[in-house]
């Protein structure tokens, strides 16, 4: 596995990696990024580069995560002296710092009031709008967070991050239709994101299990989106996992509907259900792919170790349960 670095941290940072990252604070903080020479010379001999500040920002987030508030404060002060107090980004980072240090809901409420004040002065500060949603979410006021996000998206409808967040909030409220709509917006912005396809498939699957009648259509869509996600990424464990789960659920439904005449073929010709044999084959394919991933992961083959431990374990459990039923 690649060594985690602060310039390009992985998209999902597990706790040990975050600790590793934040432990790089002392050497970075001991060296000054801006030159101490007088003015014209400082232009020529500065070691500062855009990367310096990316590193500082990631270090800031990592230290906040690991509770190293002192380092975080130092990094934040340094960035503030460099970019000024009124930079949009600095305001947002300061907000994150205050949120992290808030001990109870009351203090968090104060941070929230601060955000309201900033937004009254400058309503175009989208990062503060997002922080505001985050605070509402951690205060547990999900409906308020949803309202705030819809306002944000009304003004900036091409923000994939915000759409994904809104989808998650709706899913928490069991509003599957809205959640699916939001995720479709994400796909419109990033059509080839296999994770978004898998997430959409998961939502369809969950919405199918929420309703009792006519599970066939959402499950079909779920299957298709899982298919698309593994079509885009052949080593996507989550996609194969979902493919297997969904196809196992679809198989009895399909065989039942094929025997009980073709009653609902006319009403939803929009999304015709898949053929029984294809689903069977897909399940076999998913099983074999999962088995291969587990085998290679366990034998630590080069290039196969990037999977998340928890996901591999879950896949193994799924296969084990399957094996027991067959035996």
């Amino acid at each position: 596995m690649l060594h985690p670095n602060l310039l390009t941290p992985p998209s999902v940072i597990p706790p040990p990696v975050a600790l590793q990252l934040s432990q790089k604070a002392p050497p970075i903080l001991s060296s000054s990024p801006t030159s101490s020479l007088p003015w014209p010379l400082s232009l020529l001999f500065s070691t500062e580069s855009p990367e310096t500040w990316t590193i500082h920002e990631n270090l800031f987030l990592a230290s906040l995560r690991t509770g190293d508030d002192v380092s975080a404060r130092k990094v934040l002060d340094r960035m503030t002296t460099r970019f000024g107090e009124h930079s949009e980004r600095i305001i947002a980072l300061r907000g994150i710092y205050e949120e992290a240090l808030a001990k109870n809901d009351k203090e968090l409420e104060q941070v929230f009031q601060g955000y309201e004040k900033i937004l009254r002065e400058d309503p175009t500060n989208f990062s503060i709008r997002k922080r505001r949603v985050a605070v509402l979410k951690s205060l547990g006021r999900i409906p308020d967070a949803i309202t705030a996000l819809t306002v944000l998206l009304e003004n900036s409808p091409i923000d994939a991050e915000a759409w994904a967040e809104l989808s998650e909030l709706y899913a928490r409220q069991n509003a599957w239709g809205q959640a699916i709509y939001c995720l479709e917006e994400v796909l419109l912005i990033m059509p080839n994101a296999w994770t978004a396809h898998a997430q959409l498939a998961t939502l369809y699957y969950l919405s199918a299990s929420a309703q009792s009648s006519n599970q066939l259509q959402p499950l079909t869509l779920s299957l298709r989106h899982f298919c698309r996600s593994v079509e885009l990424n052949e080593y996507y464990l989550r996609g194969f996992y979902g493919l297997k789960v969904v196809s196992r659920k679809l198989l009895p439904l399909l065989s039942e509907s094929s025997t009980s005449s073709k009653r609902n073929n006319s009403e939803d010709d929009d999304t015709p259900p898949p053929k029984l044999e294809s689903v069977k084959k897909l399940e076999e394919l998913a099983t074999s792919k999962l088995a291969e991933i587990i085998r290679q992961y366990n034998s630590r083959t080069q290039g196969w170790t990037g999977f998340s431990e928890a996901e591999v374990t879950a896949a193994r459990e799924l296969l084990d349960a399957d094996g027991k039923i067959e035996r």
Partner: protein
Amino acid sequence: MAQPVVQTIHRDPALFWWILLPITVVMILTGILRHYAMTLLQSAPKKQSLPQIRQQRSLVRGFNLRQNANVLTPTSFQARKAYMVSSYQEGKFLADPESRGKPRPNPMSDPAAMEGMMGMMKGNMAMMIPQTLIMGWINAFFSGFVIMKLPFPLTPQFKSMLQSGVGTRDLDVRWVSSLSWYFLTLFGLQPVYNFILGSNNAANQMAQQMGQVNPGAGLMGPEQDPDKLFLSEAENLEVLQHQWILEGVEDRLLAKLAV
């Protein structure tokens, strides 16, 4: 056949130290100075208001829908299309719905546009003034010198480029006059500036002029009417052929991954 006559001109070696080198150094220094002057003169980009951001991003949402419609199920696509087309046609996303249908105001009377033009003027002045000064300086002190010989032969077409200020007909093209050296450095120092100042510098005028050909380059330049953009986008959406990418994805996947 006689050998072509090789012209030799005995140059004072001091020419190198007192003309060639000073011109080069002065040109490089002015470039650097200009870069910093431009950085200081630049006014921060003006902040857009919230309705303007909304107007622009809603249009981009339409582009996205048109380009990536394939990921949607047919029903979901139809619903979205109907919504987008109707709100585009009603002008729901416009920043100021009142001015809809009216002709655009004269850009000269718009203070924001004037500000942009002032910025451009400032940039041009920062180019022009040092250029005029240095050109005059070179003309006053160094005109008429032949300062170097190129190590390779050239065709006579280059004569006007390499020997401006030296009015001799028979001089070999390989000799370069001081004024020409000034022009060569004027146009050819971009890589040097890139090396010194980083690739995003404002030192060279050529790059500046390239940039000015298409200043806005955005989706919504100041001279375009947003309402017209919305209407044409609505039309584009209406004629769009929709094809669902998940149609038959199972078989595609099986064919691809079958062992």
